[in-house]
């Protein structure tokens, strides 16, 4: 890329002429250091995890027991917990999140009321994670406890609903995570819905479409890349969320498939154990961190691929 010569046209002096170059270097520095820091983090985690990598190999991923006192480390229960809580959170948050986004992108409310609701929803993202955790302890834990008792008594023969029911459980963490990722889904979906050109909306109306036909048949498909991006970001956030999950999930290292059983995630494992870990446990935790990073990266790569695919399908509209 060449610098834009016309920018400095008319201005004398080498400083003015060099200014575009100077800005370019600053921006380049920013970009390069972001890549560098990412590499550094990866390298550091990898180095620290090395002893555990050499000791346990890939068996670490499939091992169902995490027993520091016997130096037995398997991360499977936490892997399952991480994916399960994130999936529960998305399943719970996606339908209302998208519904709110559609509601706020249409003129159902006067503009000021719409802006107010949007602000409130986005404010959900500003609440610190630890506050969500506290709220979860006081509100969601007792709720899930009583719901779980009722459900497990009746449907306990299903593996996903087997008892005994605990308040601090997989479902509790999933419910609170759903609230935490809702604003992400809503804000990004809304932005992409609003960005759908007015001409497309008018095109649908001009062909005799009703509002809902236009939304579902034309507007939503056009905004699909943004909605996909919102979902991926939400998934990434749900998988990496630490504090609230550590406060609510019960932090059990036992592998269980029940929604009402205490569980653990990779992030909550790290938060709970790293402070008192030593020796091989540190290496094992770093290995778990590596798995978490790999997992979130995989989600982001997959998301990027989906995003590109949907974008290709809607390219050229804007």
């Amino acid at each position, binding site marked *: 890329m060449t610098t834009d010569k016309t920018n400095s046209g008319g201005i004398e002096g080498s400083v003015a002429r060099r200014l575009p170059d100077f800005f370019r270097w600053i921006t380049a520095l920013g970009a390069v250091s972001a890549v560098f820091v990412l590499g550094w983090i990866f390298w550091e985690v990898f180095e620290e995890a090395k002893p555990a990598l050499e000791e346990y190999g890939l068996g670490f991923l499939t091992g169902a027991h995490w027993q520091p006192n016997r130096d037995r480390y398997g991360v499977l229960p936490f892997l399952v917990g991480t994916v399960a809580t994130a999936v529960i959170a998305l399943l719970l948050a996606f339908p209302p999140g998208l519904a709110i986004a559609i509601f706020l992108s249409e003129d159902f409310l006067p503009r000021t009321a719409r802006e107010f609701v949007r602000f409130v929803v986005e404010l959900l993202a500003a609440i610190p994670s630890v506050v969500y955790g506290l709220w979860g302890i006081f509100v969601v834990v007792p709720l899930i406890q009583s719901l779980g008792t009722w459900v497990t008594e009746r449907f306990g023969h299903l593996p996903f609903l087997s008892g005994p029911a605990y308040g601090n459980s997989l479902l509790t963490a999933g419910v609170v995570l759903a609230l935490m990722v809702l604003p992400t889904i809503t804000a990004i979906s809304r932005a992409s819905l609003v960005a759908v050109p007015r001409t497309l909306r008018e095109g649908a109306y001009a062909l005799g479409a009703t509002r809902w036909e236009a939304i579902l048949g*034309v507007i939503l*498909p056009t905004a699909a890349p943004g909605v996909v991006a919102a979902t991926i970001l939400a998934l990434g956030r749900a998988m990496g969320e630490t504090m609230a999950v550590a406060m609510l999930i019960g932090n059990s290292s036992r592998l269980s498939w029940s929604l009402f059983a205490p569980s653990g995630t990779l992030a909550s494992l790290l938060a709970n154990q790293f402070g008192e870990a030593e020796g091989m446990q540190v290496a094992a935790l770093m290995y778990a961190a590596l798995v978490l990073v790999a997992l979130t990266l995989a989600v982001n790569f997959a998301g990027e691929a989906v995003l590109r695919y949907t974008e290709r399908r809607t390219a050229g509209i804007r």
Partner: protein
Amino acid sequence: MPDATTTLPRPAQAGTSPPGEMPGERPIISVRDFNFFYGKNQALHEVALDIPERQVTAFIGPSGCGKTTLLRNFNRMNELIDGVRHTGDITLAGRSLWDPALEVIALRRLVGMVFQRSNPFAKSIYENVVYSLRICGLRDRALLDEAAERSLRGAALWDEVKDRLHESALGLSGGQMQRLCIARAIANRPKVLLMDEPCSALDPIATARVEQLISELKKEFTIVIVTHNMQQATRCSDQTGFFYLGKLVEFGTTAKIFTSPSEKRTEDYITGRFG
């Protein structure tokens, strides 16, 4: 304002024209004493005109003169904007557009529209064309196929896309996209086709194709076209209305408007003295 209408022969009351008249003589759209407001801003003043069936009627005039506003009233598209209102009436085949028994959805199926910038949906070429039929609930594959071919042929696009009907419409060229939008607009056989500067984003070759298409389409449809291009108006329209500052200054056959306009302002505009 009265002076806008005095130059017009007082149009016959809609629906009273004797039956059996030649196509092209009978008005399909009649505008009477029409005023239109965006909030406090009056965009149209006392407009009255008759649009004959199966002819091309062009609206010309400088930007902001109200020609697009009037066009977008014919399918009630302006009602998507907050705070608009009108007085007077517009009738389609003798029936008011605001007749409570006539739903706006039904109206828009009778009055199709092609926009200034082509607006294909993020769907295949085929699904774009049959969109209006799909939302009517038509499922029969054979009927959809037939409608798609007929409409694409009607829009002179069939030969170019027949082998890739199920590819994305967004891979077409600008001119092809605009013809696709025409095909989509005629798929459910409307009575009237509104065109809002349909060639303003096209190159000269694509423009020529669309203009040729317009003269083909008028055999079946009544066309109302808004254009900034006066050559275009002379090339493809039968009637021309000149709008200025929200008033219909002059309305008549295109030949008359462009060769011997009765209004000084019309002459000034078409000879390029302002606008």
